[in-house]
Structures are given as C-alpha cells and as structure tokens.
C-alpha cells in the first residue's frame, strides 16, 4: 500500500511539471512585455532591473522557467505587485479559509449525496426517488454564486440566521458550505443511486437473500459497500470540480480565501499572485485525486491485491 502511494506520488511529478509549465507561460502569453506585467505602473528603471534579475527575464525561456520553478519549490512565489508583499504570505493567509470551506463542502456533499442516493435507489421509480433526483438536478443547475446570493438574501437578510459575509465565526461557514456542497451533492447522489441499483443486481446479493439476511442489512452492509467504490472513483475524478465551486462561492461570501484572492488578482492584473493561486489550486486537485485513488484501493481487496 505504501509502495502504491509512493508510485502514485512519483507519477504526479510529470503532471506537476506540465501544469507548472502552463502556469509559468501565462506571464509570457498575456499581451505586453512580461516586465510590465510584473511591475506596478510607474515603477522606475531600478525596479525594472531588480525584476529582470529576479526572474532572469534577459535569459532564455528555459532558464527563466528553471529560475521560477526552483523559486517555487523553495517556497518563493514572488512578490505581489499590488500588495507589495511576498505572495507566499498572501497564500498562507488565504489557504486555511479555502481548506476549511473545501473540506467541509466535500464532507457535506459526500454525506448528503450518499444518503439521498441510497434513499432514491431503495425507492426506485417511486415518488421519493423522483422527488430527490428532481430536486438534486435543480440544485445542480443553479450557478453557485447565484445560489449563494439567494441564501444570503433569505437566511441572512430576511431571517437573520447567519452572518452575511466574512469568516470570523463558524456560523459564517454554514451558507458557503451549503452553496458549494449542493453541486457535489447532486453528483454524489446520482452516482450512488445508479451504483446501488447496479450492485443490487449482482449475483452475490441473491445469495445473501438466500442466506436469510435482512434486506436492510443487505442494502447497507453489502450493496452500499459496493456502490461506494464507483462513488469514490467519481469523487476522486471530480474532486477538483467540487473544489472549483469554492472559488466562485468565496467571492460571494467575501471569505478571504484563495478564490477571492485569485479573482481579485485577475481583475488587478497581479500576475504573480494569479500564478501562485492557480498552482496551489492545481496541486490541491492533484492531491485530492490521489487521496481518492488510495481510498478506493483501500476499499477493494481486489485492487489491493493487484497493487501488491
């Protein structure tokens, strides 16, 4: 198992390099001189020299990439143009907010998605199934930021139950988590439902009935156990998709997280910060996928055996 995790980590290295090349190129692909893109407007010539030396802008692209990458690997993400502070500081401030939101939203999606999916599958084609799947579909067709605004309007402004924005109290986390989590809930519920229905038709389920096991125990201990394997697969593939929702929702709730930082920097053309945010988000996605794969392997003895 440890060997498997190690091999998967090794596999991530080329992926990380490829992603880093794309993110590095942003600064060169945007219109205009890279130096101007890295400087505050109205900077003097000596600052131009500092930046040129810092990023090696007078050297070939490969060397520039190497300078940038080695900096990144040592935790040096450059200096924010607008804030005039190390980007690493900004990221360090924002990351905990995003992590909390992302993890809570993931837990929310997984729990409610599985519960709703199981209820729908056990009541297949009956009213409960159609109501749940219809509601879940409706939830996933609403843009996250809009749903967030609606929730603010209803629960914060009209009912006064939660703070409108910010991240100072735990109650401020409730609405963002619900907003981000609903999209994922829809996905998890759909996959769980289909996987439950498919697993219930497997041969061994009939033998469980033949052994005289209670249907509830069969469904929860055996059928669900199997259905969870594809659910974890989809979750690990789409973990980034769920976390991506957090980017837009943070802005709506004015949570000082990575998403807010990214959108603000995009609008301010603060490219070192944009690069750093994208890199961190990409790494989060890669790690999430890896964790999903490991959990999947841990759940299925057949996969475990194949991994040695």
């Amino acid at each position: 198992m440890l060997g498997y995790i190690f091999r998967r980590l090794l596999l991530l290295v080329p992926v990380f390099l490829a992603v880093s090349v794309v993110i590095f190129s942003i600064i060169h692909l945007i219109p205009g001189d890279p130096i101007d893109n890295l400087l505050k407007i109205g900077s003097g010539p000596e600052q131009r020299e500092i930046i040129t030396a810092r990023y090696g802008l007078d050297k070939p692209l490969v060397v520039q990439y190497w300078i940038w990458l080695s900096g990144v690997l040592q935790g040096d993400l450059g200096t924010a143009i607008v804030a005039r502070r190390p980007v690493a500081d900004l990221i360090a401030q924002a990351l905990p907010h995003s992590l909390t939101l992302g993890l809570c939203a993931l837990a929310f999606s997984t729990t409610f998605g599985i519960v709703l999916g199981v209820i729908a599958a056990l009541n297949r084609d009956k009213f409960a199934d159609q109501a749940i799947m219809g509601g879940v579909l409706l939830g996933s067709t609403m843009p996250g930021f809009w749903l967030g605004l609606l929730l603010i309007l209803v629960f914060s402004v009209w009912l006064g139950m939660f703070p409108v924005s910010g991240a100072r109290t735990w109650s401020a986390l409730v609405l963002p988590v619900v907003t981000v989590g609903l999209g994922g809930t829809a996905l998890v519920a759909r996959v769980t439902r289909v996987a439950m229905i498919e697993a219930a038709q497997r041969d061994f389920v009939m033998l469980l009935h033949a052994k005289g096991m209670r249907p509830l125990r069969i469904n929860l201990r055996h059928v669900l156990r199997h259905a969870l394997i594809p659910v974890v697969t989809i979750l690990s593939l789409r973990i980034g998709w769920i976390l991506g929702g957090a980017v837009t929702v943070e802005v709506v709730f004015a949570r000082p997280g990575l998403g807010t930082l990214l959108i603000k920097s995009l609008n301010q053309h603060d490219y070192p910060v944009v690069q750093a945010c994208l890199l961190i988000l990409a790494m989060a996605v890669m790690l999430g996928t890896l964790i999903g794969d490991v959990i999947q392997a841990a759940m299925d003895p057949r996969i475990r055996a194949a991994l040695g």
Partner: protein
Amino acid sequence: MKVGTFDTRSGAIARALATPKGVIAGGWLFLVVFVAIFAPYLTPYDYDIQNLPNAFAPPSAAHWLGTDEFGRDLLTRIMYGARTSLSVSSVAIGISVFCGMCLGAAAGFFGGWFDRAVTVAVDLTWSFPEILVALILVAIMGPGVTGTMIAIGVAYLAQFTRLTRAQIMAIKSETFVEASRSLGAGHGYILFRHLLPNALTPVIVAAMLATGDAIILEATLGFFGLGAQPPTPSWGALMSSGTAQLFKAPWIIILPGVAVAVTVFAINLFGDALVRALDVRAGLREA
C-alpha cells in the same frame, strides 16, 4: 452503440418530445432560443436606454420584471441576455465539439505516439475544474465575449476528445468496419462514412448537456466581470451588476438567475429524455 443514421436520431428527438418531461423542457428551450434570435423585435424597450429617475422600479405593468440601477427595463435586458449567453455557450461548445472530435478521431484512428500524446494531455486537463481552466485562459486573453468563448471551448475540449476517441476505438474493430476495409475502403472513407457517423450520437447528447454547463460557466465568468463587457447584457453580467443592489432591488439578481437555472434544468431534462430515447448508455452523464 449502433445508433447510426439521422433517421433514428430525429426519431429519438420525436420520442423524447413524446414524454411529458420532454415536452415541457423542449417547449421552454424553443421559447428561449426564439426569444434570443428575435429579441430586437420582441422586446418592449431598448436594452441600453437609461432612465435614471425610474431606477430600481419594482415589477409593474409597464416594466413586468422591474428596472435596474440605470432604469433600464429588466425584461428587455434578460431577453437580450439570452442572446449573449446562448450564443457564447453554443459557439464555445461548437468549438469544443469540432476540435475535440478532430483530435479524438485522429488519436483513436491512427493510434501511435499521437494517440499517447493526446491521451496524456486530455487526462491532464480532465481532473481540473472547468472554471479553473477557463480562468487561466481568460487571464491570458483578457475579458470579453471572444475570450469567454475560447476559454469555455478549451475548458470542455478534453471531454469531447475523450468521448470521441473512446467511440472510435470501440467501433474501429467492429465487423462491419473490417468488412468495409477488406473491400478496399480507404482511411478517409472508413473514418468519415463509418466511424464518425457512429460516434456522433453520444457526442451530440454530451454536447447538449455540456451546453447547459457552459451557460453556467458563462454566467460565472460574466458575474466576475470577465465575460461580456457593459453595456452588452448577458445573464452573468446582469447578475454581476445586481450584486451591489442585492438588498435594495433583489429582483435584478434573482430573475436572470432564474432564467439560467430554468434553462439549464430544461437542457438537462431534455438531455435525459434524449438519452433514454436514444438508449445511449445511461452512464454517459457520470463519465
């Protein structure tokens, strides 16, 4: 797998329309497309005529959906917004489908190093959320309608490349293709007469569902001020300008969002009905 001809496809649309869900969803989609095309003839006001004294008017007989912060008629702007949102997302998905089918077909058909390169690139982008990919591209190209189209197009490229490749690989080895090849059919003939027509059905269904996602993505980019620029109305941009007025005039933000949600919901319902009518693998959506 073998839903090949256009007959069966149009038959499937008819069958999808024969279900109650299909009728409602199809009806709404027809209405939205109709409004988007003929907006200039249907709208009661001009979308950019300001009338400041009448700003923030709640829904009334004169302004069915109220007015925005510049006193512009919201119904008019939502109808024009349908134009921008639908055209941006459908052109974007068009780009995605065309490029994805070319890439996927070439990769699946010729195999070799090209196939491996495409597969690696596709797998790489696959696990990244579309919103991130789109944000990177908008960062590069700058905000605006063109940038949004290309950004959304690239964001969904991996999906269609992957799907087309899988279809081509599956059909490539079927008997009728082998038979055709043994009768002396060339690469081009096999690709365009056998493989692509057979791969088309799942791609069409996927494209339809992706258009729904693209409308949301367009609205999101627009909401962050990265999509269509003022005064051009798009559903996302309308909601963006409405945020500041959330407490004062909530209808400015609620109504365009309803338009997005109902349209995307209709696309999904119709897509589901189509999937059932076509009997494409139900797992398509989860893939």
